């Protein structure tokens, strides 16, 4: 019985190999413009904060236990008041924004103006400019999903630009 099974394997193997090797796979051309609009279109619309976690960079650098590296501070101040609206033009390019902090701390210190991303395909930073384009502030991108954003506000020293803490904001679509 085993002998017959082996014959079948020997008989079918070349046929299968021929079939798979002749199966030509084709991939569509990468449409970067299309990818660009998909990514920025994820940002389009109104977002509200659902969670804020504060991270201590020194504790991270020191290798301290994970439970002393961060704190969920969502309820310590009215962080869930914080809202951002990203607007885009018909071509899917960033245009203007509004930040409505409510009673929440506003570490970006900006409320309206224009915005931009550093790289539309692999976005790592979203930068906001005020209406006079004299001041700017940025979110560092951790996650951009259709209905969820995780963005960081980094706090750096004024003298040496050293990162000393950051806030991680989770936004949900309104």
């Amino acid at each position, binding site marked *: 019985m085993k002998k017959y099974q082996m014959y079948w394997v020997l008989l079918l193997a070349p046929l299968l190999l021929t079939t798979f090797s002749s199966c030509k796979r084709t991939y569509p051309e990468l449409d970067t413009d299309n990818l660009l609009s998909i990514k920025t279109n994820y940002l389009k619309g109104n977002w509200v904060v659902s969670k804020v976690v*504060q*991270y*201590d*960079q*020194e*504790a991270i*650098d*020191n*290798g*301290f*236990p994970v439970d*002393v590296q961060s*704190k969920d*501070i969502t309820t*310590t*101040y009215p962080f869930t008041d914080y809202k951002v609206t990203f607007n885009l033009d018909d071509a899917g390019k960033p245009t203007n924004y509004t930040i409505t902090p409510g009673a929440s*701390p506003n*570490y970006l210190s900006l409320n309206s103006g224009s915005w931009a991303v550093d790289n539309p395909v692999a976005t790592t930073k979203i930068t906001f400019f005020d209406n006079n384009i004299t001041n700017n502030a940025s979110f560092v991108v951790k996650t951009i999903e259709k209905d969820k954003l995780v963005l960081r506000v980094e*706090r*750096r*020293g*004024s*003298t*040496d630009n*050293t990162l*000393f*803490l950051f806030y991680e904001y989770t936004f949900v679509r309104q």
Partner: protein
Amino acid sequence: MKKIIVTTLLFFVFALSAYAQIKVVNVSAGTGSAAYFGNVTSFSFSEPVKLIVDISGVPVLVAEENANRKIYLWGFIQGCCGSGRNGDWTNSNEANVMTKEATNKWSITLPSVKEFMQASYKQAKDAAVSSNRPANETRFGFLVKGKDGTGDIKSQDMEIPFTGPVFSPSVFTAFPANFAQGDVVTFTFDKNLENNAALKALNEFYIYMEADVKVGANTTVRIPVTAANVGNTPSLKMTEAGGTKFTFVGIPSRYFTLAAGETITEIRVVIQSRTDANVNSGIKKNPVFIAK
């Protein structure tokens, strides 16, 4: 401009207990090229260490000693920075004066490399990498010198290794360790670790704060309320955080009256009773927050 506030937790009682178990590092100074002493007693970035330096191999320093002049420590981390406590080369800071232990033997106790250098562990790791060593091979550098180092009244450069900081529970902690006056900060008090029995016996605690505020070129002290009125100010009450811990969450700039351009450079905090301001964690146990 955002100012960083760096926490340096100075707990007097804890410092005393730490000094009781202090690590001792012995080295023999010489002249000429730099020396690395890799086999000294192991100590961490964040713990006190006593350095004992034998200067018998440095004739100019022996001459200083014989002339009844003192020897001083000059600290640095190669590839990073010098200690802000060093003073001038021609006029060393008295904070770095060493103690004569015996003939040709001088000592000094550092609260920690972290505090002495006012540097972060990341800076020390970056300095190791910039000196072509693995990041965890961090070193403290120093030499010993006369008050006035003019004319090379000094030893060679010396380096000793230290390990990373060790996390240990504390009676008072500030989270995060570094923050600006507009940041959210959480103070945590663990009464189980408190040494003041009268304070430890209580079940509610209040925060007394005072801040050094930079006003132009000057610094002035401001307080939200006096110690006597802290217990009448609900916003200064700590919240039970489970077990024996109590927390206070705040944004420093919201507790002090600050005009435009004024910045907080230092905050001192005392944990105290609601009813009796004299029952407190003690002025010597204040955490000190220093602007960078």
